[in-house]
């Protein structure tokens, strides 16, 4: 009998093996870069402002990353985000806002269920199924509302729970984001279900032959992805107090980019929620940082594009190195 011991004499190679190492390094670099370049960047007011937009993007990213690790995509999250806001405002204006939020989240979950069912029953790639769903929901919303903005004037229960200031620019959504990151990270790395998620995305035939119900895993993850997008949308709507059917356009790509920057494989089977957390932070930092150094907003897209390509390249290299 031979005990296999960890090699502790090589701390650097140990650190490099953390899947989050790359994204944390990139985030720190960019964070320091903007702190030095923009004098107003490193202020509590600005940092909590970043935290606010990152929380909304990040909650969506957690769901996306969780689904991508199981080997599927969800492009419809941006539409679910706007759709959730709309349902919440419409309901919240006439009934108790907590009830409105619950109904909103159930509706979002149903869209996820539909995404999963369509993908698996029709046997089409989820990329296509959810692309269709994204356009379908957005189109319906536009058609029904005529593109008009609706204002929220219901009670303050949900706004207080989700996003009203709690001091120094902090909001409850920050706490939700951190809590959900911890929760989903635990589920992924420390539960049986998490192991099934990795296996389903890593090689679904193996997972199936080892007794994992891969369709169930995928369906649950589709629902989670939609639920998280619905929650992100609900937070945003409560922050703005208005809903517009054009909210969140293009956000699905930002969320996927955040997940990929955080080390999630586009091909599934590998990724971390902590990485997704920092991936979202990286995106938010770039967005605000560029504005603060006075770069035109258009540069954001170009910057993010470049970073996604670099991150994906590094992911592949790491994979060759470690796997």
């Amino acid at each position, binding site marked *: *009998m*031979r*005990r*296999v*011991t*960890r*090699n502790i004499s090589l701390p650097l190679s140990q650190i490099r093996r953390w899947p989050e190492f790359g994204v944390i390094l990139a985030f720190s670099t960019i964070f320091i870069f903007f702190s030095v370049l923009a004098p107003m960047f490193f202020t509590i007011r600005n940092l909590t402002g970043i935290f606010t937009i990152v929380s909304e993007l990040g909650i969506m990213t957690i769901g996306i990353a969780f689904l991508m690790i199981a080997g599927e995509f969800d492009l419809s999250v941006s539409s679910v985000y706007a759709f959730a806001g709309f349902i919440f405002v419409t309901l919240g204006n006439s009934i108790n806002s907590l009830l409105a939020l619950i109904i909103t989240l159930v509706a979002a979950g149903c869209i996820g269920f539909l995404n999963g069912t369509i993908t698996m029953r029709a046997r089409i790639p989820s990329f296509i199924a959810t692309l269709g769903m994204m356009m379908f929901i957005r189109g319906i919303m536009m058609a029904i509302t005529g593109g008009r903005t609706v204002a929220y004037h219901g009670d303050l229960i949900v706004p207080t729970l989700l996003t009203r200031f709690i001091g120094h620019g902090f909001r409850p959504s920050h706490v939700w984001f951190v809590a959900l990151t911890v929760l989903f990270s*635990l589920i992924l790395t*420390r*539960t*049986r279900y*998490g*192991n*099934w998620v*990795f*296996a389903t995305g*890593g*090689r679904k*035939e*193996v*997972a199936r*032959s*080892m*007794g*994992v119900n891969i369709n169930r895993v995928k369906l649950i993850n589709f629902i989670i992805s939609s639920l998280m997008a619905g929650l992100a949308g609900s937070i945003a709507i409560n922050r703005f107090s208005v809903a517009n059917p054009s909210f969140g356009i293009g956000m699905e790509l930002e969320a996927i980019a955040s997940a990929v920057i955080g080390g999630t*494989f586009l091909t599934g*089977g*590998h990724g971390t929620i902590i990485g997704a957390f920092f991936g979202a932070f990286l995106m938010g930092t770039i967005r605000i940082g560029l504005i603060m150094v006075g770069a035109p907003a258009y540069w954001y897209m170009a910057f993010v594009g470049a970073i996604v390509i670099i991150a994906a390249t590094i992911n592949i290299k790491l*994979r060759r190195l*470690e*796997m």
Partner: protein
Amino acid sequence: MQRDLPLVRMANISKWFGAVQALNNVSIEVRHKEVLGLLGDNGAGKSTLIKILAGVFPPDEGEIYFNEEPVKFSSPKEARARGIETVHQELSLVNIMTISRNFFLGREPTRRIGSISLLDKKKMDEECSRVIGEVGIRVRSPNEYVSILSGGERQAISIGRAMYFGAKLLILDEPMTALSVKETRKVIEHIEEARESGASVIFITHNVYHVYPVADRFVMLNKGVKTGEFGKEEHEAEEIIEMVASSEGVL
């Protein structure tokens, strides 16, 4: 006594896929602590037969007896619960997962903290390390990725895993495809160890030389029909090859 009764008996198994008959009235049995070589060319029905035994799909006709008790498996999980473990040539391990996570996939040990149950990582790593050591693989940690392992090492871990979970019947589906000569010899050793510890083995291959050193008996399949069944003492390897070839209509 018990020893003389077969561990598994598949009687008069037939299976159709649409209009194609994959198996036609095939009967096989595996005795206790026996290595059965299941021979036949591609498309002979070998894989279909063992998939039925492993619970992947049911037969259209025929019965399966486990220790002379009729059984019906509706999923691989049920077959596994009886101690029927399959090691597929390419379908046993996820490359981009760690050895330890693969080892316990679908059967992860947990420990409860309050009302939530978490993976028992400590147990997973310790047990996995032990088995890795026993099958003679040298890796730094059970948390290495499977992709760094050679084909032979993967087979060794798959077999070690099956035995760890108490396999009574080990089904090996082409376990030596794409292995080096040295690794092939290793796999033979693992099979012998499995038999020593009380398991029966079905070894599926189209290459007689792979199975001949370790098999006790052979069954030959061709186009869904059983074309031969004999003990090792009855024929030399060359004769068996001749038989496989002639039943293919090569002569």
